[in-house]
């Protein structure tokens, strides 16, 4: 028994991460990530061309999922071929760069859920990522946005949708706080998205009937609310069966609407019916049903239950394995990363990398483009305020995760125009007017707190009219056209036109701004190793790496030195001094000339004045010398010391780094070093001057107090490098030191 609490343990307990509970696996409750002890022994028994047992269960004991999978989900010919392969052999093929995706997808058609989970469970995290990269259906990754706000303000929805579209999101989803708002939210999203970039697909997540109705009216283009669960009791509690969901999918397709299903590990445990099985095995059952239903895709990877999965050992790995399974089954994958996974930014980012680096069809199934407070999906794992983080990660890894940089000017322009467009549409339909002040507020807003309150009763009444009067996407296009938004009208009409050719019903379809459809059929992922598949290079890399706040390196070291008169005058070659109290102040090659201030912004003139004053105040006699042959502070100081009558010198680089040196020391030794240039003030240089004089006169000297800022390096290393490069550029090899006086030439 230890006595007392460790302050370090207490500090760690206070961190955000520790708000989350970690639990040991409890397989009976379904609280086990993968390879659970209760998972069935995989197997498939076929008699007379008919499946009679799946994963150890004979037909008489099948639940509704087994029935559906047996009926629609397995290719018996492939099943016989797969039966002859060991699990580990199949797992190895998943990461074998020479086994093309096509062969793996074919093989998956003969594997039961138990077998699928078992095989994927053999892969370690890096293997899973590699398999995911190989198995993604569409060549190029993309991303989906979430667009909502607390006030359900139409102008803000339109503005946010437009900015998201301009940032390159291929799909966007909204939802409602009050369900009667849905038609207006869908309309604002449609108008906003098409203002930002033609071809973006939109949806409104609400109850199925209503969702289908909005789609039929042409106000939305896709749906992904078709939830599937891995056990029968949960499926039935959700008021559906595999047949009802599959029928609904066909119904959407019959109206030319893209559909993806939703599933995710942990949902069965959360709802109390995991039947003692692991999360990955149950997800494999979901995915088998989803493919059997003929869905082109799925959003999976635990989705809204992510924090429960992360409470378990191997949780992050399990979620990645779910995405791999979905891709292996030839489904378009919108890979979660939408719900808040953790309080800890470290943990969130670590989880994200599993999908971010390999790339998925939609890296998130909803990146919240608004601040967290306006997220009506329950908060986003990544929010509008995190956009620069995401863009920087793309730039760091040279990875395309589907979001493009946008200048502030362009963002505000496109937001304002979208708000004006929805304002025009509202006016056209005689809906409660959107005032010019609301448009302007939406253009510049951080969140809905910046927007005036609207008459909610009147807006909801307008929303009811959209349904009652069957106001359609075509009507929206007409009003836009009548009010001068011809380009937006054309884009809204373009989206309606897509429903006629229905090309986006194929797997992993996205629509390009010119209206062409890219899907796994027209643009398949054919990755077979280095030099193949999708690579972020060329114009796209140029676009993603050029962040608006990126600086021109040279400008950072531009201090106007080339156009101003130097602050020092060169008096000729410096010789050795003789006075016993002399202290040489040795400065770098660019000091007071090419460069004019330290990294802390102290003007060189002021630095010299402080040093001179400090030296004199202690009875020393200062002499300023420029060392030209080197830029390193140790050698600048040591060269100075060798010229100094007392043998003591202060060395100062142009960026402000200083030391006190003595002639009898090795060049890389010193009396005192002041490496933290960003923290050196005028007072510091004065104190350095005093101490140098003290050493020269043989006094007892206490070191100058220094401060420590461990972030100074991260913050200033770029500037340091560039300032030093400028100093180095002025080095003249073998040049003798010159004596300087402070002050410019007349």
């Amino acid at each position, binding site marked *: 028994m230890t006595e007392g609490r460790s302050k370090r343990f207490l500090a760690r307990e206070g961190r955000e991460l520790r708000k989350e509970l970690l639990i040991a696996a409890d397989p009976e409750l379904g609280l086990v990530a993968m390879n659970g002890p209760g998972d069935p022994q995989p197997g498939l028994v076929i008699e007379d061309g008919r499946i009679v047992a799946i994963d150890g269960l004979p037909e008489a004991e099948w639940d*509704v999922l087994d*029935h*559906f999978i047996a*009926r*629609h989900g397995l290719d018996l010919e492939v099943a016989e071929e797969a039966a002859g392969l060991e699990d580990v052999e199949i797992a190895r093929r998943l990461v074998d760069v020479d086994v093309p995706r*096509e062969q793996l*997808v074919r093989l998956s*058609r003969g594997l039961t859920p138990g077998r699928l989970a078992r095989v994927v469970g053999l892969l370690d995290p890096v293997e899973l990522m590699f398999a995911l990269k190989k198995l993604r259906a569409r060549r190029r990754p993309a991303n989906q946005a979430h667009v909502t706000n607390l006030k359900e303000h139409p102008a803000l929805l339109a503005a946010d949708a437009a900015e998201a579209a301009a940032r390159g999101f291929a799909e966007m989803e909204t939802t409602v706080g009050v369900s009667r708002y849905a038609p207006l939210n869908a309309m604002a999203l449609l108008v906003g998205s098409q203002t930002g970039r033609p071809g973006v697909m939109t949806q409104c997540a609400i109850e*199925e*009937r209503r969702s*289908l*109705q909005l789609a039929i009216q*042409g106000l939305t283009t896709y749906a992904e609310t078709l939830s599937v669960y891995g056990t*029968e009791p949960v499926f*039935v509690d959700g008021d*559906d*069966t595999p*047949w*009802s969901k*599959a*029928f*609904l999918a*066909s*119904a*959407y*397709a*019959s*109206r*030319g609407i893209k559909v993806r299903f939703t599933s995710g590990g942990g949902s069965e445990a959360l709802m109390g019916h995991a039947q003692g099985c692991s999360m990955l095995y149950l997800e494999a059952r979901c995915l088998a049903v989803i493919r*059997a*239903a*003929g*869905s*082109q895709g799925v959003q999976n990877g635990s989705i809204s239950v992510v924090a429960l999965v992360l409470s378990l050992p191997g949780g992050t790995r399990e979620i990645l394995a779910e995405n791999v399974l979905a891709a292996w089954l*030839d489904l378009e994958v919108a890979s979660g990363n939408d719900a808040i996974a953790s309080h800890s930014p470290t943990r969130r980012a670590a989880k994200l990398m599993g999908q971010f680096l390999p790339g998925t069809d939609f890296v998130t199934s909803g990146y919240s483009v608004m601040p967290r407070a306006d997220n009506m999906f329950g908060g986003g794992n990544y929010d509008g305020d995190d956009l620069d983080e995401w863009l920087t990660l793309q730039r760091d890894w040279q990875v395309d995760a589907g979001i493009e940089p946008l200048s502030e000017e362009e963002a505000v322009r496109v937001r304002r125009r979208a708000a004006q467009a929805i304002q025009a549409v509202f006016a056209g339909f005689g809906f409660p007017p959107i005032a010019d002040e609301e448009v302007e507020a939406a253009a510049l807003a951080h969140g809905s707190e910046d927007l005036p309150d609207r008459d909610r009763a009147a807006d909801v009444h307008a929303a009811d009219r959209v349904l009652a009067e*069957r106001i359609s*996407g*075509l009507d929206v296009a*007409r009003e836009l*056209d009548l009010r001068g938004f*011809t380009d937006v*009208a054309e884009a809204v*009409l373009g989206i*309606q*036109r*897509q*429903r*006629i*050719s*229905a*090309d986006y*019903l*194929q*797997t992993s379809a996205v629509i390009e701004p010119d*209206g*062409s*459809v890219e899907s*796994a*059929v*027209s643009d398949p992922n054919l990755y077979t190793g280095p030099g193949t598949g999708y690579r972020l290079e060329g114009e796209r890399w140029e676009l993603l790496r050029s962040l608006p706040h990126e600086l021109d390196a040279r400008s950072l070291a531009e201090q106007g030195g080339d156009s101003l008169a130097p602050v020092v005058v060169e008096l000729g070659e410096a010789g050795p001094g003789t006075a016993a109290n002399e202290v040489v102040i040795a400065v770098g090659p660019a000091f007071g000339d090419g460069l004019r201030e330290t990294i802390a912004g102290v003007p060189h003139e002021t630095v010299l004045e402080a040093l001179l004053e400090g030296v004199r105040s202690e009875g020393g006699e200062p002499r300023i010398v420029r060392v030209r042959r080197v830029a390193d502070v140790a050698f600048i100081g040591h060269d100075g010391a060798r010229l100094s009558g007392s043998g003591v010198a202060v060395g100062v680089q142009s960026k402000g780094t200083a030391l006190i040196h003595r002639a009898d020391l090795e060049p890389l030794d010193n009396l005192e070093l002041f490496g933290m240039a960003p923290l050196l003030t005028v007072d510091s240089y004065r104190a350095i001057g005093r101490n140098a004089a003290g050493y020269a006169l043989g006094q007892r000297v206490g070191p100058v107090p220094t401060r420590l800022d461990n972030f100074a390096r991260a913050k200033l290393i770029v500037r340091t490098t560039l300032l030093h490069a400028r100093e180095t550029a002025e080095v003249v090899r073998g040049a003798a030191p010159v004596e300087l006086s402070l002050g410019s030439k007349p």
Partner: protein
Amino acid sequence: MAFDPASDYPLGTRRPDLVTTPAGTPLSEVTLEALRAGRLSADDLRATPETLRRQAEVAAAAGRTQLAENLRRAAELAGVPAETILELYTALRPHRSSENELERWAARLEGEHAAPLTAAFVREAATAYGARLLLAP
């Protein structure tokens, strides 16, 4: 020119000649000018059963058997009124329909809507629901 599912996708760009609205308006005539002239109707801006069947062929040619089946069912449902579709969806939910009721739906799909694939799908559901006690009590 005959339709080739392996090379004619996307239909909208590669075979616009094959794509029309249910009322027969060609894709190329779905324009703002047509909208201004009142020649477009919202109900008509959707895929025909033929287009959906061609998309099913494209899916099948790419090896996507189940997606192709889904799109064939969709082609059958293209002409079925939305209200009917929503009623059938409800009927397929658990504990909503008896075996007879589902059989009547299947017969109606065959008789009124020329939808044999969907009818078979409904009958299959009825069998599975019977085995799992998911029929209406």
